[in-house]
C-alpha cells in the first residue's frame, strides 16, 4: 500500500500514525492533559542540535522491514534481538538509548518520523543553515526563533534588557550565539560557556601576561563583561537554582550543560530558549565497530544524547518544573539507507527527530520509512514532514502563537502538526485555540479502531460515520459535551475496507474528516 499519499494532502490535524499500534497505551495521551503549564510565559524550549547528520535508521529502527535493512546495511545493522522494543513490533530504538526508551514508555518522548524538506541539500553548511533559519529557498538573514522573538520585540536590542524582559531571550550553551535566534537587527541568544568550565575565551588563559599587552587584554575583557548586562542575571540564576537528579554523568558534556540549564530555569531565569550542540554525527566511517554494531562512534553519541536527556527530564521532574520545559533534537540531514564499506554511512535526507516533555501529544508521529529490497545508489529517506511544520507547530502549541502569526514566519504554506497541543489542556483553551485547534483521528489508516480527536464548546454534539456516497453507516452518539478537547474511540472492525468520513455536527461548527479502514 502506498504510505506516501497523504503527505501532500495533510490538512490541519490529520496525521498519519501507523496502523499497527498494538500496545501503545492511547490513554497515556489523555493523561498528559493534566500535566501542562497554563501560561506560555513560563515555558522553555530546549533545542539540541546533532551536528553532522544523525543516522536515523540506526536510531529508530523500522523493524517491519528488518530483512530489507539487512540487504541495505548489513555491516552496521543493529541485531534485531538487541533493538529496544517500544511496545510495538514495527519499530524500536538503538539499544544504548535506554534512558530515552524509558521516557517513551512514560509518555514523555515523541518520535516524529521522516522529517526533512524536499530537494535535500546534502552540504553540511547549507543544510544546517536551512534547518537553523527555517528557510529553504532564500539566503535567510534571520533564524526561525529570531523571527519569533522579533514578532513581539520590534525594537530589540534597543531598550533591552528592561523590566518586562530582564533576561536573555535565548541562551546558546557554548562560545557561539545560535543562528536560530538571529533577528533582523541582532541575535537574541547569549553565548554562555559551560559554567562548570571556567576557561575564558578572551584572554590567554593559562598564563596571563604581566605585560602592557596583558594589562590591556585584562582591561578589555573586563569591559566586555561589564557590557554584558545579561551576564549578571545568568550568574544569579545559577546561584539561586538547584540540581536534584543523580543521573548526570560528569563526563557527559551534554548532560552537564543540561544540568546547568535545569539549574538556570529552577533559579528563576526567564530565558525562553536554550540551544545546545553535540558534535560528531558525521559518521562516514567507523559508525560502528567492525563485528560489533552496537559499539562505535554512533553508539557513544546516542548514549551521550539519551543519558543526558534522561537525566535532564528526571531533574526537571524532581525540581517540579517538568511542565515548563519542552525539548527537541534536530540534525541537518539523516544518512543514506545503504551503508558504505567503511562501516559508516554517507549524507542522506530525512530522519526522525525527537520531541520530549511532560505533555507531548503522540508517542509516534509518522510512518516507518520505506526500505527497498535492493540498494539504490545514494538513496536517503523520503520526507514525510517538513521540518518547518515541526517548528511552526511548536511555536503554535508550546508558545501559543496564533496560526496566522506563525505562518508569517515561514515562507511555505504551514501545515500544523499535533505535537504539544495537550500542553494547553482543556481548561487552558482560549476561544482562539478553540477555533484554531484542528480535528484529527488516529490511527489512520485504521483496522479495529480509531480515535477521533476534536474540540467542542459546551453543546450538543452528534458524531457519525459516513461512507463515500454520503450514507450514514454508523451513528456513534448524540449527546451534550463539555467545553474541552475530546478523544472518542470508535470501533471500526465491522466496517468494510475503504474510505469513510467521520462527521461531527455541533452548533459551534460542523467538522468532517476522512479516514481509511484497512483489513491488513
Amino acid at each position, binding site marked *: 500500500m502506498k504510505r506516501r499519499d497523504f503527505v501532500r494532502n495533510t490538512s490541519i490535524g490529520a496525521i498519519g500514525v501507523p496502523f499497527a499500534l498494538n500496545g501503545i497505551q492511547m490513554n497515556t495521551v489523555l493523561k498528559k492533559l493534566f500535566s501542562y503549564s497554563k501560561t506560555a510565559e513560563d515555558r522553555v524550549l530546549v533545542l539540541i542540535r546533532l551536528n553532522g547528520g544523525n543516522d536515523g535508521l540506526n536510531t529508530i529502527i523500522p523493524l517491519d522491514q528488518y530483512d530489507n535493512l539487512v540487504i541495505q546495511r548489513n555491516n552496521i545493522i543493529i541485531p534485531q534481538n538487541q533493538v529496544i522494543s517500544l511496545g510495538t513490533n514495527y519499530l524500536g530504538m538503538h539499544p544504548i538509548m535506554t534512558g530515552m526508551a524509558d521516557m517513551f514508555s512514560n509518555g514523555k518522548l515523541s518520535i516524529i518520523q521522516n522529517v526533512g524538506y524536499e530537494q535535500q541539500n546534502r552540504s553540511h*553548511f547549507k543544510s544546517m543553515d536551512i534547518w537553523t533559519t527555517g528557510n529553504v529557498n532564500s539566503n535567510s538573514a534571520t533564524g526561525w526563533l529570531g523571527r519569533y522573538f522579533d514578532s513581539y520585540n520590534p525594537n530589540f536590542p534597543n531598550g533591552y534588557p528592561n523590566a518586562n524582559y530582564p533576561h536573555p531571550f535565548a541562551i546558546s550553551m557554548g562560545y557561539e550565539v545560535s543562528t536560530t535566534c538571529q533577528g533582523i537587527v541582532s541575535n537574541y541568544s547569549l553565548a554562555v560557556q559551560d559554567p562548570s568550565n571556567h576557561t575564558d575565551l578572551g*584572554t*590567554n588563559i593559562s598564563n596571563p601576561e604581566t605585560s602592557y599587552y596583558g594589562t590591556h587584554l585584562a582591561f578589555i575583557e573586563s569591559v566586555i563583561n561589564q557590557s554584558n548586562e545579561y551576564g549578571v542575571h545568568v550568574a544569579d540564576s545559577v546561584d539561586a537554582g538547584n540540581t536534584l537528579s543523580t543521573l548526570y554523568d560528569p563526563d557527559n558534556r551534554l548532560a552537564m550543560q543540561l544540568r546547568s540549564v535545569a539549574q538556570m530555569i529552577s533559579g528563576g531565569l526567564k530565558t525562553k530558549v536554550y540551544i545546545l550542540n553535540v558534535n560528531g554525527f558525521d559518521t562516514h566511517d567507523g559508525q560502528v565497530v567492525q563485528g560489533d554494531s552496537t559499539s562505535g562512534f554512533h553508539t557513544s553519541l546516542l548514549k551521550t544524547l539519551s543519558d543526558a536527556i534522561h537525566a535532564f527530564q528526571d531533574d526537571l521532574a524532581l525540581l517540579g518544573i517538568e511542565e515548563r520545559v519542552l525539548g527537541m533534537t534536530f540534525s541537518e540531514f539523516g544518512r543514506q539507507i545503504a551503508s558504505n564499506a567503511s562501516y559508516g554511512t554517507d549524507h542522506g535526507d530525512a530522519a526522525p527527530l525527537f520531541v520530549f516533555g511532560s505533555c507531548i501529544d503522540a508517542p509516534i508521529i509518522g510512518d516507518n520509512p520505506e526500505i527497498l529490497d535492493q540498494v539504490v545508489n545514494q538513496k536517503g529517506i523520503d520526507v514525510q514532514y517538513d521540518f518547518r511544520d515541526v517548528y511552526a507547530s511548536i511555536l503554535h502549541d508550546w508558545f501559543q502563537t496564533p496560526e496566522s502569526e506563525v505562518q508569517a514566519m515561514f515562507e511555505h504554506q504551514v501545515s500544523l502538526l499535533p505535537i504539544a497541543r495537550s500542553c494547553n489542556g482543556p481548561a487552558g483553551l482560549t476561544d482562539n485555540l478553540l477555533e484554531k485547534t484542528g480535528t484529527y483521528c488516529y490511527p489512520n489508516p485504521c483496522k479495529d479502531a480509531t480515535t477521533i480527536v476534536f474540540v467542542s464548546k459546551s453543546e450538543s454534539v452528534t458524531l457519525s460515520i459516513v461512507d463515500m456516497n454520503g450514507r450514514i453507516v454508523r451513528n456513534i452518539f448524540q449527546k451534550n459535551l463539555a467545553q474541552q478537547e475530546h478523544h472518542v474511540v470508535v470501533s471500526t472492525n465491522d466496517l468494510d475496507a475503504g474510505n469513510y468520513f467521520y462527521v461531527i455536527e455541533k452548533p459551534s461548527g460542523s467538522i468532517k474528516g476522512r479516514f481509511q479502514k484497512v483489513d491488513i
Partner: protein
Amino acid sequence: MNTYTAKTPIPENEIGGGESLSMAPYTGPWTKAQAAHLLRRTVFGPSKQQIEDAVANGMNATVDTLLTLPAETLPVTYSPDEAVSSIGNTWINDYMPATNQQPTITARILSLFGWINQELFNPTLSIKEKMTLFWQNHFAATNDNEPRMAYDYVMLLRNSCLGNFRQLVKDMTINPQMLVFLNGTTNNKFSPNENYARELLELYTIGKGPQIADGDYTNYTEHDIAEIAKIMTGWIVENYLAESGSLVTSNFYDILHDPTTKQLSEKFNDAVIQDAGDAEYAQLIDIIFQQDEVARHICRKLYRWFVNYDLTPIVNSTIIEEMADVLIANDYEIEPVMDMLLRSEHFYDIALRGTIIKNPIEYATSMYKSTKSEMSYGVVSTYEIYNIFGFLTGDIGMSYFAPPQVAGWTAYYQQPGFSQMWINAAMIKKRVEYSWFALYNGVEATNGDKYPIDVLGLLNSFDFPADDIEVIRELEVLFCCKPLSAAQRTFLANTLNANFGSAVWAGAYNNYIADPSDQQNADIVANQMRVTLLNLFKMPEFHII
C-alpha cells in the same frame, strides 16, 4: 555613560622594565612578527602582501620605504550641491558662490572628509597617513565652515609631516585655520588674546612642567604667555568664504600689532624681542626652540603615538633623551628621529609588543585594509562611502578633523588610561556592531553600491585556504600582534568549519574554488569566513597592536 573606572598604572618595575633601552639598530630576527609590528605601528591596516614584502625586503629597506612620502591626490567634488566646481573636479582653488553659500560649504567639507578618509586607504606603503594624524592630534585645530582653509591646514600637516618641526610651528602659527581657531585673528594690541600663546607653549612646543610657584610652570611662566600674546598681534585672516578668486590667506597689519618691546622670563634667558612687525613671531619661535625641552616634549609625543604610553623615568632619561639629541642635532628635522626609532632595538623589543589599544581609525581600517577589501565605483559612490566610513569611525570615538579638544584625543594624554580611553562598555559594543556591519553589509552609498569586507578575496590570498588550521594561522599573523592560545586557535578553526571538522571545510572550499561562479558554494565559504572573522574581531586580542 562611561562606567569605566580608572586603571591603576602598574609600577614600572612590575611590567616591562626588561625591555631594551638601546636605540642602536635592531639586529634580531626579522620575521613576520617584527615586520607586522613595524607596519601596524606606521601604517593603517597593513595587508598580508605588505607584511610579506617587508619580510623579504628587510627592515632597513622597509623603513626607507615607509619614510618616503607618496604624491598627493586632490579632493574632488562629488555632491551636486556644489555651486562652482563640477563633479569629478577639485574645488581647492575655486571661489565660493556669492549667495547661498551653505550647500557649497557642506559639499566641499564632505568632499574633504571623504578625501582624507580615502587617503587612509592608500595602498602605497608609507608612514604619511599616521604622521598626518599624529600632527592633526598635536595641532588640534578644527574648522568645519571654510573648506579651502581646512584643506590648506591639513596640507600644511601633510607636507611637513617628516620635515622641519621648527618651521612647521612657524607656519602653523600664522596658518589661517589656526589663527581662527585659537583667536589669533582677534588678538590685537587693543585687546590681546592669550589663547594661542598659551597653547603654543603648553601643547605645541615646550610643554608645561610642574607648577613650582604662582604662574610658574617650570618651563615657562604666565608672564611669557602675556608677552607672546603681544608678539602674535597683528595677524588676521582674509578671503574667508570669499566669492572672489582669492584663496584664504593670513595677513599682517601693523595697525593691529603691539610694537612695544617684549621680554620673556628667565626660562627663556630673559630674551628680548624688539619691534619687528611680522617677523616677530618667527624670532619668538627660534627663541623657544633654543630650549632643549622642546625636543623632549615632541619626542615624548612621538613616543606615545608610536611606541608606548608609559614614559617611565628610565625611558625619559634614555630613549627620550636620545631621540631629542637626534632631533636637535638635525636642527629639528623629524625624519631622522623616526628613522632611528623605527630601526631601534627598543622598538622591536617583545615587551613593547601590544602596548597600544587601536584607535577607532586603526580599528576600522585594519578590518578593511588588512583584508585588502577594495572597491571601484565612480566618484559619487566612492566619496559617499568614504564619508560614511569616516562617520562610523567618529561614531566609535574618532572622527578625522575633529579632535574633541585643543589638547587632541584623550587617549594620547589622559592619565592613567591613555589608549584604554577608547574602550568602555558602550564603545566596545559599538566596535562589535561595526565589525558585524562591515562583514555582513558594508558601508553603502546612496545608490546601493556597497563596500563590505572582501572575505573571499582574503581567503583566496592565503597559501592553503582549504586547510582550516592554516587559514587561522594566516589570520593570526595578519591581525594579532602576539600569538593566540591553542584553545583560541581551535575555537576559530571550529568556527570556520562549523564544528564539522577540517575535511568538511576542505571539501567546501574545494567545491567553491572548482567553480567560483557557483553562488551557493561561494556563499557557504564566505559565510564561514564572516563568522570566523567576527569572532576574531570580537576578541580582545584584535583590539591591540
